[in-house]
C-alpha cells in the first residue's frame, strides 16, 4: 500500500498542513490585532502603570512584527500563549483537554452520519421509485433543510421535557466538568443533532452512486451466480458505491467542527466549539487565534486521512 511515491505524497501533504496552520493563524493573528480594543482594554484600569504592566506581560506593548514572531515561534513549540481573560491559563493544554470532549461528541456524530446515511441511501437505492425510496429521499431533504439548532431544540423538547420520566433528564448536562466527560447516553442526543443534517447528504450520495453501481455487469454476474441479494448488495455493490461517498468525508469533518460551535453551546458541552463562541464574545483573542490554528491543523489532518482512505478503499488510486 505504501510505495515510495505515496510516502513522498504524505510528506508533501504534511508540509502543506504545517504551512496551512501557520498561514491561517497568521491571517487571523494579523486581522485580529488590527481590531480596536481587546479583553484587557475593556477593563478600564485606573492605574496606567498597572495597565502598562499588563500589556507588557502579554507582549502587547511590542511592535506587531515582533509580537508576530514570538507567536509563530510559540506555535512551532506547541505553545499558543495565555488566555487574556483568565490569566495564567495556558491555551495549549486547555484546548487539548477540550478537544477530547469535542472529539467524543464529534466522533459520535460521524458514526451517526455514516451509519444512518449509508443505510438510508442503500435502502432507497435498492427500492428505487417505491414509497420506501420516496420516504427516504424526502426525509433526507428535510434533514439537510433543518438547521442543527432546530434539530437540537426538538430533541431537547422531546427527550428533555416531554419524555422526562423515560430519559430521567440524562440530556441535561452539568457545567462543572471534572476532566472525564460524557457517558454514552449523554453523547447520543448531541451527537445525533450534530450528525443528522450530514447523514442526509451522505444518504443522497450513497443512493445516487448505488443506483449507478447496481446496473453494472459485475453485479448482474454476481446475481447470476446465485448469490443472495444481501450479499450482492453488501459485498459487491456497496463497496464500489462507497468510493464517491468518501469524498464527502473531508467536508463532513469541517461541517462537524463548525456545527459543534452551535451544538456545544446549546447542550452546554465544554468542548472546543463552546470555547470558540465564548472567547469570541469575550474578546479573548489569544484563545481565538489559538483555536483557529488548532482547527486548521485538525481539518488539514482530516483531509489527509481521507486522501489515504481513498487508496485503501479504491486500489486503482495511487499517489
Amino acid at each position: 500500500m505504501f510505495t515510495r511515491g505515496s510516502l513522498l505524497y504524505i510528506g508533501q501533504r504534511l508540509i502543506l498542513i504545517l504551512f496551512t496552520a501557520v498561514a491561517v493563524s497568521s491571517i487571523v493573528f494579523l486581522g485580529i490585532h488590527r481590531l480596536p480594543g481587546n479583553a484587557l482594554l475593556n477593563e478600564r484600569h485606573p492605574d496606567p502603570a498597572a495597565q502598562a504592566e499588563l500589556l507588557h506581560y502579554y507582549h502587547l506593548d511590542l511592535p506587531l512584527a515582533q509580537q508576530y514572531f514570538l507567536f509563530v515561534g510559540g506555535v512551532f513549540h506547541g505553545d499558543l500563549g495565555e488566555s487574556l481573560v483568565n490569566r495564567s491559563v495556558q491555551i495549549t493544554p486547555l484546548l487539548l483537554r477540550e478537544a477530547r470532549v469535542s472529539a467524543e461528541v464529534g466522533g459520535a456524530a460521524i458514526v451517526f452520519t455514516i451509519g444512518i446515511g449509508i443505510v438510508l441511501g442503500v435502502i432507497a437505492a435498492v427500492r428505487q421509485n417505491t414509497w420506501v425510496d420516496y420516504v427516504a429521499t424526502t426525509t433526507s431533504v428535510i434533514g439537510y433543510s433543518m438547521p442543527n439548532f432546530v434539530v437540537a431544540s426538538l430533541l431537547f423538547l422531546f427527550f428533555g421535557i416531554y419524555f422526562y420520566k423515560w430519559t430521567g433528564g440524562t440530556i441535561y448536562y452539568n457545567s462543572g466538568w471534572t476532566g472525564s466527560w460524557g457517558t454514552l447516553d449523554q453523547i447520543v442526543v448531541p451527537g445525533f443533532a450534530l450528525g443528522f443534517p450530514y447523514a442526509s447528504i451522505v444518504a443522497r450520495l450513497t443512493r445516487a452512486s448505488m443506483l449507478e453501481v447496481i446496473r453494472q455487469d459485475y453485479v448482474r454476474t454476481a446475481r447470476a451466480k446465485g448469490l443472495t441479494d444481501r450479499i450482492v448488495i453488501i459485498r459487491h455493490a456497496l463497496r464500489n458505491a462507497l468510493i464517491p461517498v468518501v469524498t464527502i468525508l473531508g467536508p463532513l469533518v469541517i461541517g462537524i467542527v463548525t456545527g459543534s460551535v452551535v451544538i456545544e453551546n446549546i447542550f452546554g458541552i465544554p468542548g472546543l466549539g463552546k470555547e470558540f463562541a465564548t472567547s469570541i464574545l469575550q474578546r479573548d483573542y489569544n484563545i481565538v487565534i489559538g483555536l483557529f490554528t488548532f482547527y486548521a491543523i485538525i481539518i488539514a489532518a482530516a483531509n489527509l486521512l481521507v486522501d489515504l482512505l481513498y487508496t485503501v478503499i479504491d486500489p486503482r488510486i495511487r499517489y
Partner: protein
Amino acid sequence: MATAPGLVTPEAYVDTLAREQSSLWGDAWRRLRRNRLALASTVFLTFVILVAIVAQFWLPYSYFAEGIAPIYQGPTAQHLLGVDDLGRDILSRIMLGSQVSLKVGIGTQVIVIAVGVVVGLIAGFYRGVVDTIISTIINIFYGIPDLLVALVLVLLLGRSLGIIIFAIAFTQWMTMARLVRGQTLALREREFVEAARAGGAKANKIIFRHILPNALGPMIVQATIGVPMAILFEAFLSFLGLGVPPPTPSWGAMAADGFHALRISPHIVLAPAIALSLTLMAFNFLGDGLRDALDPRQKR
C-alpha cells in the same frame, strides 16, 4: 394511440410539430410543472416573498414594541403565534424576519454568481497558468471551515446586513466558480464554439454569446441550492449572537432568544424554527426539481 408505423394521423402530426417547437426552457418548464414537490415549493416561496413585501408596509403589531402582552404568553386570538420573552408579537417579527432571510439568501447568490462567473470563465477559457492559480485558490478555500471564517469576518468588519452577506459570499463563491470553470472547459471544445471562432468572433463574443448562455442551466440550479445554504449561515450567525443587530428580527436570533425558555414556552423557538425549516426545504426541493427539469439525463 395505436396506429400502424409509418402512418401519421393528423393529431400525431400536430403533436410532433408542437414538440419540435418546444425550446429547452419550455421543455424544462413542462417537466418542472409535473414535479409536485417543486411546484408546491414554488407556491410556498411566492407566499414568503409576498409576506416579505407586505411586511414592508403593514405588520399586525410593531416588531419592536415590548410588553404588548404578558411575556412568554402562548398563541392567542390577538397574537396568533404568541409573544416572546420581551412581550413582542412573534407573528410580526417572523413576517419582518423573512426580509432578512430573503435578502441574505438572494444577495449572497448575486455576489456568488458575479464572482463565480468571472473567475470561472477566466479559468476555463484561458486555461494554463491562470487556471492553475485559480484552481489552487479554490482548493484552499474549500479547506477552510466556512462558518468560522464567516464568524471572524463579521467580527472583524462589524455586524450589519451588508457585511453578513459579504462574509457568507466570501465562503461560498468557490462552488459556483468551479461549476462555471467546468462548464466553460467542456463548452469551449464544442463545434458551435469552433464554428464561431472560425467565423472570426472575438473572445468576448464567444464567451458571452456562446459559452455563458449554454452554462446557464447548471448555474441556475447551483444558485437555487446556494440560497438555502446562505440563509442557514445567517441563521447560524444570528443564533451565535453575531447576526443582524437587534431589534431587527432574524429567524435564527429569534430561535436563540427563546432557547432559555424552551420548557415553559416552546412556541418562541418553534415558530421561527418552523418558518426557517420550511423556507429552506422549499428552496431545496425547488433546486432538486430544477436540476431534474433542466438536465433530465442526470436524473438521480
